[in-house]
């Protein structure tokens, strides 16, 4: 039984004369991995920013779990169960890895407006933090300052911080960006593991990763949806091949 977890309806975002996202309508099914691919400048990151609430749409609507979030703020959307990671690593460099994940984990308290007892005593937050670090295999770097770990580990930390918020739906913006083969493999395995219990929407350029992980693909060109389908359907699609002529990957 297919459940729609996130859908957009004629979602449009213009910046002056530039139409970054153009009447984009799509349904994301719960429980699968949905990848969005397309040439640079296609509007993928803009789309993600719209879904996460960091950009306000020019027109159209977005709903998450059948609830309208078109004009919702990022914090509200996060509390509803949507987590996102960034293309440009967006961690807290001067905090330890543990502290990075902690702030994600603490967000699930019913309120952080608590002033008296030390945060360190919150067992459930502690457990969420440790679990998040473990999921990305960064437990051994728990006490290390985030700026001191490798780039690949920082990307993993980025994901861990988001995981600490225990999201149902993960929006991942190029999680493999800039990674070497071994690190990339680690992340692919992580994504497969996460896909077991959560819905993933990811933007990626690394086609090996996309094929290994994705259930459905959407190809985005010039702010519009070119085609959506299974991996094989997209691979064999004439329209997609034409759009991608000259692009590496296929």
């Amino acid at each position, binding site marked *: 039984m297919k459940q729609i977890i996130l859908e957009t309806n004629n979602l449009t975002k213009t910046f002056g004369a530039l139409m970054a996202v153009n009447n984009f309508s799509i349904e994301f099914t719960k429980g699968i991995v949905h990848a969005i691919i397309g040439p640079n400048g296609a509007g993928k990151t803009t789309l993600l920013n719209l879904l996460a609430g*960091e950009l306000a749409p020019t027109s159209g609507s977005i709903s998450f779990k059948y609830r309208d979030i078109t004009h919702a703020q990022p914090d509200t959307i*996060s509390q509803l169960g949507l987590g996102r990671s960034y293309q440009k690593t967006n961690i807290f460099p001067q905090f330890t890895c*543990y502290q990075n994940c902690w*702030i994600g984990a*603490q967000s699930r308290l019913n309120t*952080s*407006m608590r002033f008296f007892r030390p945060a360190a005593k919150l067992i459930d937050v502690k457990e969420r933090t440790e679990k998040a670090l473990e999921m990305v295999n960064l*437990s051994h770097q728990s*006490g290390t300052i985030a700026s001191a770990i490798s780039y690949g580990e920082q990307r993993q930390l980025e994901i861990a911080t988001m995981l600490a918020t225990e999201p149902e739906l993960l929006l991942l913006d190029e999680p493999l960006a800039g990674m070497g083969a071994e690190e990339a493999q680690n992340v692919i395995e992580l994504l497969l593991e996460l896909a077991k219990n959560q819905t993933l929407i990811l933007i990626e350029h690394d086609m090996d990763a996309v094929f290994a992980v994705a259930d459905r693909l959407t190809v985005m060109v010039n702010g519009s949806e070119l085609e959506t389908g299974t991996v094989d359907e997209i691979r064999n699609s004439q329209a997609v091949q034409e759009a991608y002529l000259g692009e590496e990957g296929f």
Partner: protein
Amino acid sequence: MLNITRPLKLFLLILLLLVAISPLIASGFYIGLMTKMMIVAIFAMSLDLLVGFTGLISLGHAAFFGIGAYCLAGFFSQADHYTIWIALPVSMGGAALAALVIGWISIRTTGVYFLMITLAFSQMFYFFFFESKHFNGDDGVFMNTKPEIFLGSFQLLDLNHEISFFYFVLGLLVAVFLLLVMILKAPFGQVITSICANDQRVRALGYAIQRYKLVSFVIGGAIAGLAGFLEAAHTGFITPSFLSWHESGLILVIIILGGIGTLYGPIFGAFALVLLEDLLPELTDNWKLMLGVIIIMVVLFLPNGISSMGKKLIDRLKPKPITEPGSSKKTTVS
């Protein structure tokens, strides 16, 4: 994150003891000077909460200092007797209310806009008191008497004695310090420290960051109001200059010199600057020039303030911590 290591705790404790016994050896003038240092230290810590821990760089913090002072002046200047159990909450409450209003408007803005709007609001209040006939404008208000501290019919402290006032302020300094340490270790503190580091990320992780910033702003304003109350009670004379932007600038200078985001740095900065302001004029009439030069030197050569100098010394003394793999005992949320 707030990080007070064991050697530092020891150092601070020793300093506290030294300060605590100083009235027994020092003359009346120095006791008064040290009282002033401690009052400025409280003021400084309240700004450090905003600047160093929340990332709200305010150039109008003196407004709350002054409002705390003027609350005392406004309600109690003519009184023959009044109790601190009412006067103090009134002052802090007035300052907190002003911080709520100013904060609610200002926190929509960020960066330099925030800097300037806080400056402008404090100027607004400055001119309000300057031009107000009710408060005697530039001539200022004199307090008839100091607040009384009674429990039932038993007098706890007689603030008319310089030494009693000294210990009163010392007690409050320690209390404010411990209060802020507590808040910073609590979940609230975790959030604002993270906001200071990367506020957009904190928002994306599910926090209503404006609310947290506002609460921090109000707490900072209330504590500044406490400092203003103490200064008014101490000197017995309140003028609009309490709210001048020179004061706002100077308190910012103090916490930067002392080292922002440390909580103890501003205390050192306050002591240093009040001392400088007292000693320099004896060297030369144009001491402000020297102060300006000193400030510029510190900015250029000591970018992390005085406490970074001290920290480097302390770091050399203490043993290096071991970061063992998987050793989550070491990784406390400090």
